[in-house]
């Protein structure tokens, strides 16, 4: 039990509605990405971790402690909720500053730290405007600033990228990476898979209140490697190539969807990719392009979730 988050058989129900169902997982250091469809239980997990909900069953710990009504633990975490509401009548600066002072920081110091945090998230120019006029992307940054400003050990970010524009996404992801580089832990959920791939190798797939896969992205890639793949090869001689490839035992079918295309289905993608260069360079066949729609986090997600 030395993970940042340890959950053993955690269940949470809202009346009859499922939140988490015997959720068991252990998250390590650095950045961990939580991926799952809407209603899978990501927000429920976060709320349990920040002590806003009480689990019905099982045991959950954050940084080794039980989070429910645990006041001292709050100093060590920063949370960025999914909702976009802020205190509209405060400016960004006042917002972060006030929350810092609630951490027990003296006024002068919290002003300095708030200014610094807003600078980190790139919100300095709007810091003195009331937050009610902020766009979604600016709200995301303000929420991130208040989560970061007191230098917590762990950041819990619920959909931190939703609503941010492309430049904002890049900025937020960079901020998160730097936080993790300085030794912080980050748990973040997102729907946009290719973006989580940019900042972390650790992901947890949640579905129906359970962790269905977790760990290094390469381990999940291994999952990809064992489920059937379709590979589209662009070549001037698709039939000759098909003949050459036919000696692979794990191939299921060949298709010729276009004059210069060969579509191969294989049961063992890793073996296929390992053997392919040998065959291509031995036969000197002209292969111009190679792609597989099944070789992505998106695809593995679809495969596991069905």
């Amino acid at each position, binding site marked *: 039990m030395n993970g940042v988050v340890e959950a053993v058989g955690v269940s949470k129900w809202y009346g009859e509605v499922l939140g988490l169902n015997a959720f068991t997982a252990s998250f390590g250091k650095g950045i961990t990405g939580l991926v799952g469809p809407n209603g899978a239980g990501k927000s429920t997990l976060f709320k349990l971790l920040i002590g806003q909900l009480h689990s019905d069953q099982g045991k959950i710990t954050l940084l080794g402690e039980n989070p429910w009504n645990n006041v001292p633990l709050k100093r060590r975490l920063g949370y960025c909720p999914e909702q976009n509401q802020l205190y509209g009548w405060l400016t960004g600066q006042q917002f972060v500053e006030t929350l810092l002072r609630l951490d027990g920081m003296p006024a002068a110091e919290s002003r300095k730290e708030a200014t610094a945090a807003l600078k980190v998230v790139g919100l300095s120019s709007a810091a003195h405007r009331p937050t009610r*006029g902020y*766009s979604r992307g600016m709200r995301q940054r303000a929420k991130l600033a208040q989560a970061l400003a007191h230098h917590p050990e762990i950041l819990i970010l619920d959909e931190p990228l939703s609503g941010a524009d492309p430049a904002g996404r890049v900025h937020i992801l960079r901020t998160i990476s730097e936080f993790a580089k300085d030794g912080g832990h980050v748990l973040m959920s997102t729907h946009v898979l290719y973006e989580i791939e940019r900042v972390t190798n650790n992901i947890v797939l949640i579905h129906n209140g359970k962790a269905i896969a977790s760990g290094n992205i390469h381990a999940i890639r291994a999952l990809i490697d064992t489920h059937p793949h379709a590979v589209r090869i662009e070549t001037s001689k698709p039939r000759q190539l098909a003949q050459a490839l036919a000696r692979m035992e794990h191939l299921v079918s060949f298709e010729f969807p276009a004059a210069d295309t060969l579509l191969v289905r294989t049961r063992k993608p890793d073996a296929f990719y390992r053997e392919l260069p040998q065959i291509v360079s031995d036969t000197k066949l002209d292969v111009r392009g190679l792609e597989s729609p099944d070789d992505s986090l998106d695809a593995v997600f679809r495969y596991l979730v069905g």
Partner: protein
Amino acid sequence: MSITLPTYSRLEIPLLGRRQRVWAIIATGLRKELRRPAAIVVMALGAAFTTITSIAILFIATIIPSGQAPNLTFFSGPASNFFVLFFVSLMASVIGAGLIADDLQSMAFTLYLSRPITQLDYLLAKAAILAPLVAMVTILPLLLAALVAAFLGFFSWTIALEAMGISIVVGGLLTLFYTAITLFLSSLSRRKGIAGAGVFAVNFGLTIPAEVLTIVIGNRSILYLSPWDNYVAVATAAFGASSTGIDWAVALAILLGVTVLAALVTYVRMKAVEVITG
């Protein structure tokens, strides 16, 4: 599970005009209120209570010998029935307070605005939802009281019919006033509770002190402060009864003025409402 896409289908007939669009809002709004338990309870209680008390007031007036033959002036009694004030406040806060506030809260206001109607259409439709429901405690009891009295032979049909006509005008005035005030309060905040509390505050915050003061110092011009007393002055004058001490014409001007002002401010405010999205 994957979805299959049925084909995109075309609409072949032209759109109806603005009047039908506004009517759609009214009809849907009314139907919704008539299905809400809270609204039904308040309406039923309100209509029943005000009607019964109005009839009672009318009977008592005819039974007590006043040296007068039953005439139109007897109807000023039910018209100034204090229960009307109470229930009109209750109905305004239960039904009216959410009419605009809810749309602001759920941001459905944007949805209305993206339709081919104007802000004015929207407001008129909302007013048309509230007004008939308010009329159930402002006009209906007076009509029923006159009807019952005529059937029982206390009044001649001529007098009863005349009383009903006046009731519609006078009750209509009160209905308009409360509709405008309630919609104004409802447009101020996206929390309908505050609008509802506001109706109570306006009513009791003005009527109670005005009446207390009048009794204590005997200067009746203070009653101009109270919308309810203005209405009573207009109603008694309309039924030809002796004056309550304040000039009905001034009272009428105040009521109409406030109604128009509230409607105007609401309209200007709704035009300026901007839902922040980013």
